[in-house]
């Protein structure tokens, strides 16, 4: 279990002590380790892009996390078998990065940015509201996250990778509803549709879009 602060961040330092009662895991035998065919192809394609196959560690772990839901020992073993690396090496990588989870997690990720710009505009309150809204839904993983690089829509969140904001506390319930219904989340607040703030970049907008603004 990775130790975490109350607000959700990892406590830096040692992640997990080594279990000395077990023999060290060696590089898995590719002949006897079963790997889903598509995952194997994804990892092999990633390895082919780099001069050193180890560079594919993050993309490979990402792909395995997609398949298994988290970087489980089995997921890591499968990556290790394809990449011909030790599970320990891959675990050391997986525990370093915030987006790779080495403990089981719900399938929907809601990362609430609680860094400076967002918190100045109420992100901590929204985080509480989000936790409350998702409290009885086991499929939603709410995490306070460091600056997600979207301070122009503060306070904001990344819902399964989709950036939404600026958020009000009422949006928390809407996010959970949209996730349950399988709809695009808070479509009118998605960053991908937002125009540049700089008034000097203006271009002519189609009439209906101009009205929307």
């Amino acid at each position, binding site marked *: 279990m990775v130790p975490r*602060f109350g*607000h959700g*961040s*990892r406590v*830096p*330092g040692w992640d997990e002590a080594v279990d000395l009662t077990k023999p060290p895991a060696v590089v898995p035998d590719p002949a006897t380790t079963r790997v889903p065919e598509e995952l194997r192809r994804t990892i092999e394609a990633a390895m082919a*892009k*780099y*001069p*050193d*196959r*180890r*560079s*594919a*560690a*993050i*993309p490979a*772990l*990402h792909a395995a996390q997609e398949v298994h839901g988290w970087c489980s020992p089995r997921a890591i073993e499968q990556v290790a078998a394809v990449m011909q690396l030790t599970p320990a090496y891959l675990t*050391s*990588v997986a525990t*370093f*990065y*915030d*987006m*790779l989870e080495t403990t089981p997690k719900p399938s929907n990720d809601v*990362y609430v940015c*609680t*860094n*400076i*710009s967002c*918190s*100045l*505009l109420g992100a901590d309150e929204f985080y509480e509201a989000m936790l409350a809204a998702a409290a009885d839904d086991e499929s939603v993983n709410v995490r306070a*996250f*460091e*600056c*997600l*690089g*979207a*301070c*122009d*829509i*503060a306070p904001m969140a*990344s819902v399964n*990778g*989709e*950036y939404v904001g600026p958020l009000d506390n009422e949006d928390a319930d809407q996010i959970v509803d949209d996730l349950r219904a399988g709809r695009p989340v808070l479509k009118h607040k998605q*960053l*991908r549709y937002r*125009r*540049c*703030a*700089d*008034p*000097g*970049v203006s*271009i002519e907008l189609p009439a209906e879009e101009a009205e929307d603004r």
Partner: protein
Amino acid sequence: MKLLFDRIDEPELNTIPVYERRGGYQALRKALAMTPADALNQITASELRGRGGAGFQMGKKASFLPHGDTDKFLVCNADESEPGTFKDRELMQKSPHMLIEGIVIATWAAEINRAFIYIRGEYAHQADILEAAIAEAADAGYLGERILGSNHSLSLVLHRGAGAYICGEETGLLDSLEGKRGNPRLKPPFPAIEGLYHGPTLINNVETLCTVPHIIEMGGEEYAKLGTETSTGTKLVSVSGDVQRPGNYEIELGIPSREIVYGLAGGPPEGREVKFWFPGGSSAPVLTKDDLDLAYDFDTMAKAGSMLGSGAIIVVDDSHSVLEVAMKVAKFYAHESCGKCVPCREGTNWTVKMLERIESGEATPMDLDIMASVQEQIIGNCLCVLGDAMAMPIGSMVEKFRDELEAEIEDARGRAGVGALEDVIPIGVAE
């Protein structure tokens, strides 16, 4: 003057037909008609300073790379994680071909054949757009072997990170790109001599590389006329926090900061005023409202004791306490410290603990002195500047808002009922 943001919202600018229609990839043709040395001379003549944070001249950095037949690499740093910064995100999402064109020109100038874009994992949408744009550019012959019939060949790979601020630090980024934990390396050797896979490596920020096609198009000397003498060109600034119109703005370097904070971003909400602001991301020492008339360029910000950094202005108005912001800053760096160097790992965590002491009413003003001395012990003592990046803003907050923090200490003691300060004799201060 808009260069990077010129008609940035044009629909489908992320596709080659639209990008080409407005003159895209013409700068590449122009550069490929020059020798690499001439192309590099144009970049050097522009005096373009790196837009990622350090402000080092791009032409100079590229000239450090050895010549000759070795495997050299270019890495585009798109791990935009400095709190308050979101300019590269908008560039990559809306004009990915400008970045690709910049990379092809820069690799021609520095005689490099392999390039990587390291984009932070959270930018999934932008990464998808870039991936599609790279495939499109390869199909159109702007990437790959013998680009546009020239002698230049380039393979470009997009690499997605997985959430770690430290991977924006250039050597941490290199380790991460090599498939390791993102721990910074000891410098020297600098990446230009020994970087990715031990090869000479040029590392540049997204905005820096996006500027390169414009430099080639205008000519380096012409570009250098923009901005101030030592801070040439235009810069994207990300304004956020307590302002009415947060967002990215393209400015000519050297305009008054007030014009950005009030003129463009609309200033704090009605009835509030600026208390302090970070001129270059959360790593920059804070400036107060009295500094708003300073020119916004690299040297003026440095002279004022802060830095232009990534060009991210975070405005804090008078409804917020210094303690609240200091706590956010310190917790962020404590979380993101990779844990390799003791001064950073311990210093960031102890700073959080000391700020928590203030909040809970256990602190005395002496804690502020200890906190200031902790910051001094971090600066310059680590492999990278992550620790410094906390020490500088925290140090500046303690220095500039000491009265407020002392009042906060007194108040918190009152709330906690631990006794007034005059009853406490701090250790070492007793006569």
